[in-house]
């Protein structure tokens, strides 16, 4: 299963050094992101804008670009990246499979179905509930869809012990949700098609302070809570029976982890659409560098995901400025070949030395 060749003597980083390094990297990427865009600013100017905001200085145009447009977007990219990568690491531990992804529990497909349903059928709904229109309506529908699909997967999957049934229920619910998306796409008119294509490619373009304030908690709370389950996740890598023998309660841990991941990933997908590869790539790469211990892997994945998505979003809005590349396309375009390189760089992939 683990087809990436490893050195005979595995290297291990000291956790404070590893996390400190990643935090520095994140600060550097954030700084770069704040100073680049359709209107490039010097790095010092971006810092000055932050200083102006902190000491109550009167804000000028450049300050506003940094503080009102770029800063919320950078923070959103950090949060969403952290959520996707940390969620991926948790799912890989829970399913004991390095290829697992938060999508396995149905949250992404459910959110996509919710969003597309709102885009295509929302016109009718908006006449009844005027508050639920436009992009916030789509976000609410996506969040609700993600949670509903996950709840359904969990209800079906827990009928038998073990994660295998859960995994199969997730596959089935994913397929049904994607069929629903297909059906709605078929029913959609030209404008709706354009909207739903754009949504499904993912974008951080709609980030502002208001949206950030709404989704910060459902993303931050699980991110802060998950590292507390690190030891149990480590034991779970040995199998549910071994985890039980070590004094953990997999039957309680499983629903907790699924709920936390569904909450934060549901919120992330609702805000930005589906952004692939972050949840797979970041934990995989970090495991390769520092081993599978979740006490380091979970916080490191959160920081690494934040770095990756902030960097990718900065590229997305600068390479074809003033237009923007969809970020989902960019992460897959960069992540895919990198992942292949990881897989293929060893002389005999799949063979254990």
């Amino acid at each position, binding site marked *: 299963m683990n087809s990436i060749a490893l050195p005979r003597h*595995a290297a291990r980083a000291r956790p404070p050094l590893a996390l400190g390094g990643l935090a520095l990297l994140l600060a550097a990427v954030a700084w770069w992101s704040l100073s680049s865009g359709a209107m490039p600013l010097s790095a010092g100017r971006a810092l000055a804008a932050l200083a102006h905001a902190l000491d109550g200085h009167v804000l000028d145009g450049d300050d506003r670009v940094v503080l009102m447009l770029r800063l919320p977007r950078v923070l959103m990219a950090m949060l969403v990246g952290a959520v996707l990568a940390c969620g991926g690491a948790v799912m890989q531990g829970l399913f004991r499979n390095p290829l697992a992804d938060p999508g396995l529990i149905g949250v992404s497909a459910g959110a996509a179905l919710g969003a597309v349903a709102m885009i295509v059928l929302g016109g009718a709904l908006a006449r009844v509930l005027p508050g639920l229109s436009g992009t916030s309506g789509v976000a609410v529908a996506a969040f609700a869809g993600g949670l509903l699909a996950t709840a359904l997967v969990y209800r079906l999957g827990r009928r038998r012990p073990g994660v295998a049934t859960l995994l199969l229920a997730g596959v089935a619910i994913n397929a049904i949700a994607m069929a629903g998306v297909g059906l709605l796409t078929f029913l959609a008119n030209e404008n709706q098609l354009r909207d739903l294509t754009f949504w499904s490619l993912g974008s951080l373009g709609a980030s502002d302070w208001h949206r950030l304030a709404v989704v910060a908690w459902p993303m931050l709370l699980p991110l802060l809570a998950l590292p507390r389950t690190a*030891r149990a996740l480590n034991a779970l890598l040995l199998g549910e029976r071994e985890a*039980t*023998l*070590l*004094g953990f309660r997999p039957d309680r841990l499983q629903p907790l982890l699924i709920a936390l991941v569904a909450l934060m990933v549901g919120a992330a997908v609702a805000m930005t659409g589906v952004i692939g590869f972050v949840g797979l790539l970041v934990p995989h790469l970090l495991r390769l560098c520092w*081993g599978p211990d979740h006490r380091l892997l979970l916080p490191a994945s959160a920081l690494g995901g934040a770095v990756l998505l902030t960097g990718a979003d900065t590229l997305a809005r600068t390479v074809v400025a003033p237009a923007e590349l969809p970020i989902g396309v960019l992460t897959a375009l960069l992540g895919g070949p990198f992942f292949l390189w990881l897989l293929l760089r060893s002389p005999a992939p799949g063979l254990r030395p």
Partner: protein
Amino acid sequence: MNAAAAGGEAWGGRDDSLAVRGVDLRRGDRHALKAVTLRARPGRLLALAGPNGAGKSSLLGVLAGVLAPTRGEATLDGRALARWSPTALARRRAMLSQDVGLDFAFRVDEVAMLGRSPHGRSQASVDDRRVVDAALRAAHVWHLRERDYLALSGGEQRRVQLARVLAQVWECGEGTPWLLLDEPEAGLDIAHQHFMLRRARLLACQGFGVIAVLHDLNLVARYADEVALLAQGRLVRHGSPDEALAPAVLSEVYGLPLRRVAIDGEGWLLAPA
């Protein structure tokens, strides 16, 4: 009911055993265990023997507390396993399972350190490191401690799992540590089979309670202090290897005529008649 439970606890202080009383276990529509009563004592190596499907691993699972009996109860120090907190129980008994599918690239010493999970503390202490070191040496894998677990052979991985299990109950200090081994000899070469059983025997001499499911009756005869012979979910015989492994009983239980062959000086081997 309450009086009985209270009586059991008062008695618990003196009762130093891992036992099952009147245990039935249904798995699906199959009776895996029927009315099994068995008491294991500290300082002895108890072997569970019997043909395939006799209920040996089921009984070990009930003794470990991972399988809940349909009727009857399993007790540690006279107290039902279900009434122990999972972590307190985990500090007292460890089990080497037949097959541990670990697909993540932990280092060998990290795998052994997982055995320290029930001992509180989120970061490993000096004590934990010392215990893991001792467990790695006891399982003959200390020289592999910095290697990637996935790069080891099957037999080496099994010894690493033994080290993890030993680390779990090493110096537990809260009572007799119990070690349950499910076919510890499976997949090992003859030297390591004997190494594994000698280690189990040595631990029993040091005061551990050791219960092992064993298929090789000659290993049972050589190393076990007591044998519980199971057939079709029932306990057929319980006693010393000399008593419990009577050729007439074994021949019937296994459906294969067996006889004892004396080996020069001491003991005997079982061979088809």
